[in-house]
């Protein structure tokens, strides 16, 4: 093993063994995402009577899929503190934004036709 063969990987601190491990994780996540999609669509064809249940399941699976993408494809599972702080602030402002918008529920401008 010469130093030269490692020149690219050393700079980033990923050995070939590590990369091989990463690739296995990527494939597992990929399969999980496919399964998640199939599950969401299949459950949708069952037509539950409860609308709340349908929405909850669909959003639950979507959240799991999004978490997998963010953690493994976007490497958030092992990121530096700077990124976490930045994203923490983003989550705070996102929740504030959504709260502000959704708090106007039930308020209609005068003359709105709702049916």
């Amino acid at each position, binding site marked *: 093993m010469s130093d030269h*063969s490692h*020149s*690219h*990987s050393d*700079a*980033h601190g*990923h050995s*070939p063994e590590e*990369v091989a491990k*990463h*690739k296995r994780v*990527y*494939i597992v*996540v*990929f399969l999980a*995402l*496919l399964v998640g*999609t199939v599950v*969401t*669509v299949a459950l*949708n*064809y069952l*037509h539950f009577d409860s609308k709340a249940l*349908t*929405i909850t399941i*669909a*959003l639950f*699976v*979507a959240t799991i*899929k*999004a978490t997998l*993408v*963010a953690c*493994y*494809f*976007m490497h958030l599972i092992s990121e*530096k*503190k*700077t*990124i976490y702080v*930045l*994203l923490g*602030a*983003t989550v705070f*402002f*996102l929740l504030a*934004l*959504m709260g502000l*918008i*959704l708090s*106007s*529920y*039930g308020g*209609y401008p005068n003359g709105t036709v*709702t*049916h």
Partner: protein
Amino acid sequence: MEIPYTSKPRPDTGIYNSKVGIWLFLASEVMLFGALFSSYILLRVGAGEGTWPHGLLSIPIGTFNTFVLITSSVTVVMGWAALQVGNFGRYKVYQAITILCALGFLGIKSFEYRDKFKHYEVWLKNPITVHQGGKAVLTDRLLGHIEYQGHHPYFWTTPRLAGSPEIKDKDGKVVKAAVAAVESFKFQPDPIHYTMTPKEMAHAKAEAKGHAHEVIEIKSSDVKRLSAFIPSHSTFFAIYFTLTALHGLHVLGGALVIFYIWGPGAKMWKTDPQRYMNRVEVSGLFWHFVDLVWIFLFPIIYLL
């Protein structure tokens, strides 16, 4: 002037600057899509009973496009991993698949859009009897396709039926030719309407299979309102086109950047491999974000 820390990590943050940059940008993107998603929820829960269209988008097509986007996301990370061990050839193959997936996604999406632009809802002044799923139904709201003078027209709305006069400019030159009024048109009604429950809809679709489509003649004077499935049709289509078109632009932008790095920008692999890998990683982060947005868009727009 050289931009600092594009290849080596900055000592205090421990990461190279472009990564902080892309995450800041993605934070702003989260706010953009967050605002639109919230608007969607607000519009949806505020809509009157039975007014929110559902079941008008093709679930198989949407599902297929979801697979396409997920595949493109995994090829991005696999390509990046190939670069980590110096396998440039394999990286080229993976990213080529990514770019093809992006084009495939956009192609399928534009096919869907085109289909919507010539699909119609007609609100009639008086209810008529049509056959829906083997049953005769009295209704004043029909979904379906228009046939007029041998064509399936695009983008029609109510004013089109009245036609429009010739428009001339100051010098008397015709700027826009007169459009003749539509006396009547042929209409091929769908067996479904979004006022049905999902169960009724599935039933009506199954019943209609194998039956010949009926074609009815509708007089323009009987039409209260008419609209193609375009933003002015309803709040649903307005937010549908806003969200999916904005997402589509992101797919296009991301694909262009990935293509540049993959093609003309690939020279950097020889001169500064670490910086090149960072570019691949940063463009990949954007790409995964676009995938992530679709992961939420697909269920809320196609399924719920």
